[in-house]
């Protein structure tokens, strides 16, 4: 499957990854070869076959509605790169 620069950058943006200009060619080439290789699946006749969406046979694996706060605020914020006593912080979001 051939993908162009534009498609690559669109996908990179969706994934919030940067692709530097000097990396583009190699990345396009390796992705194309993998995608083409993936297209082997077209050889398999899947007419009338349902997609396998869940690997487990389990259904209704739910829990009772009981409240429990498993993390203190301190522990929750402690791993954050930028935070104060109350909030986790990020650079201002421009609306």
């Amino acid at each position: 499957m051939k993908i162009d620069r534009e498609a690559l950058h669109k996908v990179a943006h969706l994934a919030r990854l940067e692709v530097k200009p000097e990396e583009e060619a190699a990345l396009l080439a390796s992705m194309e070869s993998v995608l083409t290789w993936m297209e082997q699946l077209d050889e398999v006749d899947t007419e009338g076959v349902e997609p396998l969406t869940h690997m487990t046979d389990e259904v209704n694996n739910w829990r009772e509605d009981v409240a429990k706060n498993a993390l203190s605020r301190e522990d929750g914020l402690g791993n954050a790169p930028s935070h104060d006593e109350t909030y986790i912080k990020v650079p201002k979001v421009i609306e």
Partner: protein
Amino acid sequence: MPYRLCFCFSEDNFPPELKDYQTLAAIQHDLKTGVSTCVELVRLYLARIEAEQHLNAFVEVYSSDSLQRAEEIDAKLTAGTAGRLAGLVLGIKDVLCYAAHGVQAGSKILDNYKSPFTATAVQRLLDEDAIIIGRQNCDEFAMGSSNESSYFGVVRNAADRARVPGGSSGGSAVAVQAGLCHASLGSDTGGSVRQPAAFCGVVGLKPSYGRVSRWGLIAYASSFDCIGPITKSVEDAALLLEIMAGADEFDSTVSTKQVPAYSKSRTWNESQKVRIGYLRESVESEAVAPAIRQRTLEVIEQLREQGHTVEPVEMPLLKYGLPTYYILTTAEASSNLARFDGVRYGYRSQQASDLESLYKKSRTEGFGEEVRRRILLGTFVLSANYYDAYYTKAQRVRKLIRSETEQLLTRYDFLISPVTPTTAFKLGEKTDDSLQMYLADIFTVGANVAGTPAIAIPNGLDENGLPIGLQVMTQAFEEEKLLSFSQYMSATIATPEKV
């Protein structure tokens, strides 16, 4: 015949005190008879880890923690209150959460991250008094077959330091191979427990999908990931599985099926003959190394001599297992790894000036090349225009592969094959061509695609003294049978000492 693991040590630098224990039972015997103590064991393992640092199997060693635990457990042993795993010194792959300890999935993006909770599987082992000696190096986010993509550097095979140990649980396999701990806990998504086990000459078990809770396992591909033990003996793998397995309130996909007492399975009855299928291509294809083909054929012969029916089988869909695996795992991974964004934990780029650059720079700087490539591939196959052609198609093929496998396993008790097409390759040999690397998983992915359990057991050495593995697979949730038979095989058939 006990399998000697320690190729790495010459006579003079082999620490004489640490015996080459094959089973936990043997260790517990020594503890009971006062020949050793947990503290002594831990000290000796710590010394070995130190001596073998260049293997780079461990990311972090919990020296004081484990010694303290050892003291506590020695006290419990004296009091007669010790758990079933007292005396077990265990390493865990750097994808398993352990409260108050760092976990990074071999990645820079989780620098400085400490997990506040413990994985269910790990907790269950701790509850039985296992001692965790450290976290083990692995391919970044478990994506790899050689342990060459870790942020913490490559791991080396103790049989030949210029070669890879396999991946992604490379550190975990080497640790057992080189006697740096008694057993390891790894994860297997496409072969990541079995393939390094084969490359390192140890036992690696991938249970059925859903047999063990995934709570606390850093997710790579949710419908493929399995936690599995890497051990020296099948007996130990059975014990660890029994303790870890079963329903868990935190995991919605774990099976609620009863857990048999795998460790108490009766030894395989010699008079019970089974039907075994082997992949025809695996012993005929040029792509499989001659030594591996030969050893596999020898096993087949021996099994026949024992009276079992061993027949070649065709699996026409086998080769489609790999592209199916890569489409689905990259897709799931692209979503599972979206949480690593520099906001709530882990690495945040200093170059970030606004939110967009915070995301993009943190993720681009934090993730390694292979991970970035797979995220891009996964995002691509899920994107609107290609979803049906790749993702849905792969799910349909997965269904067919699972049926084909299930069908075969109604006709045969077990399916056997080599674990890998080659023995451990040289460091750097495959890193330039990702596709070449992916093809190394050909025999192992099937079990992940179908969700069936499979075990890798040692099956001799090749002409360079490199370990060869044999894979045995059976029907989902039939681990009891699998473990019993592979233990029997280990004892009676696989003759590792072929030099």
